């Protein structure tokens, strides 16, 4: 495994019989992912896209050796479905589901963490390593195997940028869409060390957004313990100051959380910060050329 997924990743799709579950099971298989099982309670014995369906994750794991799960379960049931995956021994769980209450995510995050299961998401497009495996919903077409690592809090914007990297003749090692919810299973600071250790990654792209302090925290980590070049983009530079969370939110972040503070922190950490999304692949291509020359 390089970063979280590889050819050994065996995926069980939780909520496989729904529309999204079915569509993305097909797309994952087309990508080359080993989708080995699906789970929909009450639908055991059926099959979706040739993938056997089980009643429980435990059975799916026992019968198919699944070690990762991809969740398309509706938000009200997502917490219990994730806990089921953790209890069944799943090591990586990608929560595509959006609108999961953050109070539920607090429970899910700490429950999974204590038991060694990594969550990506929620409300995220998942993870993909071109030529190896994909768990989630990032469109297959944007990828091309290569040596650029991508981590992003955004969805479609990630597709844009990843696609742009491809159009500049480069490719990706692993791309993780972390999700933009207030509580995420994997943040920039959780993901960066994985890429630091990854021999397949030469260069990092970080796509952030206003709100929270995940980018500032990432900048601190980049400054102190990340050795590869970083190209960053922060969406929402010109968005009006958000009213979300009111006063208490403001004092938690205390002047951090704005685009300006994120850009400044990343630049201080030595990252190249693009002003617009279309600049990201341009800077990546430039850095890649410099690296190639060395």
């Amino acid at each position: 495994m390089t970063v979280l997924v590889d050819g050994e990743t065996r995926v069980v799709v939780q909520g496989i019989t729904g529309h999204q579950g079915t569509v993305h099971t097909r797309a994952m298989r087309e990508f080359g992912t080993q989708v080995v099982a699906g789970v929909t309670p009450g639908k055991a014995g059926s099959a979706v896209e040739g993938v056997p369906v089980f009643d429980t994750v435990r059975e799916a794991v026992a019968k198919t050796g699944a070690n990762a799960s991809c969740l398309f379960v509706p938000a009200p049931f997502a917490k219990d479905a994730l806990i089921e995956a953790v209890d069944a021994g799943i090591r990586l769980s990608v929560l595509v589901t959006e609108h999961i209450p953050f109070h539920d995510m607090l429970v899910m995050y700490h429950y999974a963490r204590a038991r060694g299961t990594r969550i990506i998401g929620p409300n995220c497009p998942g993870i993909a390593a071109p030529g190896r495996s994909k768990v989630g919903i990032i469109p297959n077409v944007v990828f091309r195997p290569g040596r650029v690592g991508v981590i992003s809090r955004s969805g479609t914007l990630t597709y844009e940028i990843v696609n742009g990297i491809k159009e500049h003749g480069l490719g990706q090692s692993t791309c993780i869409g972390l999700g933009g919810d207030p509580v995420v299973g994997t943040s920039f600071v959780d993901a960066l060390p994985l890429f630091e250790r990854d021999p397949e990654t030469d260069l990092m792209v970080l796509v952030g957004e206003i709100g929270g302090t995940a980018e500032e925290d990432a900048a601190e980590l980049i400054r102190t313990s990340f050795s590869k070049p970083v190209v960053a983009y922060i969406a929402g530079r010109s968005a009006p100051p958000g009213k979300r969370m009111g006063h208490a939110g403001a004092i938690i972040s205390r002047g951090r959380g704005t685009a300006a503070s994120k850009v400044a922190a990343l630049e201080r950490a030595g990252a190249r910060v693009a002003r617009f999304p279309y600049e990201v692949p341009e800077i990546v291509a430039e850095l890649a050329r410099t690296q190639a020359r060395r």
Partner: protein
Amino acid sequence: MVKLTEGRGKELFRKYGVAVPKGVVAGSADDAARAVASGAVPLPCVIKAQVLAGGRGKGGAVRFASTPEEARAAAAAILGSSFQGETVREVLLEEKVAIARELYLSFALDRTARLPILMTSARGGVEIESVDDSEIERQTIDPFPGLVAYERRRAARSLGLTGPLVGELDRLLTGLYRLFDDEDAELVEVNPLAVVGDRLLALDAKVIIEDDAAFRHPEFAAVHDDRTPLEEIAREKEIAFVQLEGNIGVIANGAGLTMATLDVLKEFGGAPGIFLDLGGTDDPKKVTEAFLLMAQAKPKAVFLNIFGGVTRCDTVARGLVTALGSVAPSERFPLVARIRGNNEAEGIAILRAAGVTSVPDLKASAQAVVAAARGGP
């Protein structure tokens, strides 16, 4: 995000055993006068506009009364007035209490720790942003087992409380933390929390309930909020729609792409102000509905910026063309499209057939929209 008015917040406080001044919410001057005359609200009392914006004290939305007549007059003056764009529909009448000290207290989310956070400060009654970091005690709370004794004691110390007030704070914190947890709150804020004799009273109440938890809290569905009428319609149709200052409409999919689009438009001198996020929808009906909602907001020009990943470009294009047909000629506006990704070619062909051109380059398309909004070609 469901923001509760002070009055609704205090109802919740009572439910969780948190002491608030004696008070009544009134929707008319008559009701206000009756509440005082009946003794339900002791005199002298304070009359506060039930609006969601802050700064009511300075803005004349808080008044005092010593007689039922004064209470009626104050309520009459406030009700129906406009405060920072909100119409005042209700006032809260409350006994005036003898405040010895004003404190600050809130429960919120610490995103980095992924834990609830309790913040307390002895410097209450002022905007917490103006208080120095060193004067605010921050404690993250583990939901399992919840708020424990030493955390409550630390809070008491930070607030400078001693004697019976420590027990008061214990009960108050236990109640407010339960509220934060059970009601799926994003924020529970008390500012000021007042020391009144040997009691603690929550003089204000700011409670925000998380939208995503609405399925667990149907009781908040009817809560009045600070949305525009169009935003309210969008909310009912489950379309992410935000109105701000500006005349360019943006239809995009995904929050990040929407924000990036905004950044690019601003860069080229545009004033985007109407935002519609299609999210991951694949449904042409939804696209049509969204587009018609956009039309109602009367934009000068609209920029459709779609990256089809999960979404198929042809489906979005089809929904858009259907919508275009239902907009009256007098209400039409310039439309610039940029659709890329999944089934891009089909989508572009469908748009072209309907007379809409799709420009693949983000920079060029953004420039075109800005020009169109200025009445240019």
